[in-house]
């Protein structure tokens, strides 16, 4: 099962490291990362595999959302099906 983690916020040192660490902590395998910095806004999309995840998904979504708030970032972890169903026929 794949999820999409999106991170949007003001660019600073350690965003990628912080989010990756969280993924490792909960047994989530990062498959693909794309990131861009527009002016000073940082935007990162991670595609991850959660088949070996060691918490349940809704807990993880909450954890990431709280982590985002602490760091001043907007972080959303969502199941990939929502994007597939919305953008593919």
């Amino acid at each position: 099962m794949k999820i999409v983690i999106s991170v949007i916020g003001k660019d600073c040192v350690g965003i990628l490291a912080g989010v990756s660490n969280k993924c490792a902590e909960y047994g989530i395998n990062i498959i693909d990362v794309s990131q861009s910095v527009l002016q000073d806004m940082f935007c990162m999309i991670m595609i991850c595999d959660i088949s070996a995840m060691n918490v349940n998904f809704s807990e993880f979504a909450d954890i990431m959302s709280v982590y985002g708030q602490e760091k001043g970032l907007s972080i959303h972890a969502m199941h990939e099906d929502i994007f597939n169903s919305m953008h593919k026929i």
Partner: protein
Amino acid sequence: MIETKDILETITMIQEENLDIRTVTMGISLLDCIDSDIDKACQKVYDKITTKAERLVSECEDIEKKYGIPIINKRISVTPIALLLGACEKKEPVKFALTLEKAAQKVGVNFIGGYSALVQKGFTEADKILIESIPEALAVTDHICSSVNIGSTKAGINMDAVKMMGQVVKESAELTKDRNCIGAAKLVVFCNAPEDNPFMAGAFHGVGEADCVINVGVSGPGVVRAALAKSKGLDITGVAELIKRTAFKITRMGQLVAKEASSRLNVPFGIVDLSLAPTPAVGDSVAYILEEIGLECCGCAGTTAALAMLNDAVKKGGVMASSKVGGLSGAFIPVTEDAGMIHAAECGSLTIEKLEAMTAVCSVGLDMINIPGDTTPEVISAIIADEAAIGMINTKTTAVRVIPAIGKKEGDSLSFGGLLGEGPVMRVNKGSPAVFINRGGQIPAPIQSLKN
């Protein structure tokens, strides 16, 4: 592979443009709860609802987390209670209302609909007793919604029922005048009521439905408006195309959630209602879409045409996105629940007469309109009759949910809070239709009914 721009588009829709699933509604048949002893029947109703819907709220909350999309309401619709009441020796319908209220509180849903009667072609004794009890039932409960179907294209319009409903609407407001007349906001009078509608106040679980189903209503006026705002300079064909594409995306979300809820709860998926349902939140307004299309203020000349195009495009986009479509399906135009409609009504651009014209081309009817507290029951009945006639002749659902603002007059304001919103008390033509309404009888089924 999912593209970054698609991911960001979805996230923007949810975070900034108020995209949400408006409701997941579980339809539950209560036909197997019928009993001649009303207390036994109530116990069966309570047991069935609390068993079937036990996990409804928790599973929906889990789905919200999984997909990151808010599900605003979790609701239940049940078999019209008049059908259960018919079998009871003691005809005390409010007992059913209190039972439904208790069950709704137990499972934690926002609303439960189905305190209803279908009387388009005539009354049973139970129908009459239930209709007369509606004001009391709505006054002593918080979560119950009531609806009465008084007409259809197939049957015509039951004018005796129309007359009754004018009084019932007025009394529902009177009995709850210390709570902003909220009783009348939970009561809707239908022509051609759909049996699988997930939206309140008109949801009930029709007799032709399965034992238990999941129906989903989507939202998203803010998304449509934002899409239009980003694409200036399109001609109307282009605008219709853009709305269609956006409605497709919105509905796909509804289909996904409906399928997921259905499989988690082990209940068949019923329908997705292809709706554009506004909320009082700024930006989440159907009126603002019409203004984005190019009207100075909703209600001005051109509103009906723009709304007709919008409604049609929403259906065309939505119908391809879902395997089963039903309910009300179309753009909703409730006044107090839509920031743009509220503004248009306050500044005098939007009148009840214009709203009536708009209902001929959109999803439902005269919805959430505050009218002066001294409006007579006959005038309310006549408003219902006008609206039902539009539905009957055009083979579409129409409805009336007006709130007589007891103690208030035109220009005052009435606030309900939450999704029901607030709005000005609108002007009503005070000419008396009393003789017409008091004639009673039945408007015969129109020629459109003879399709066989």
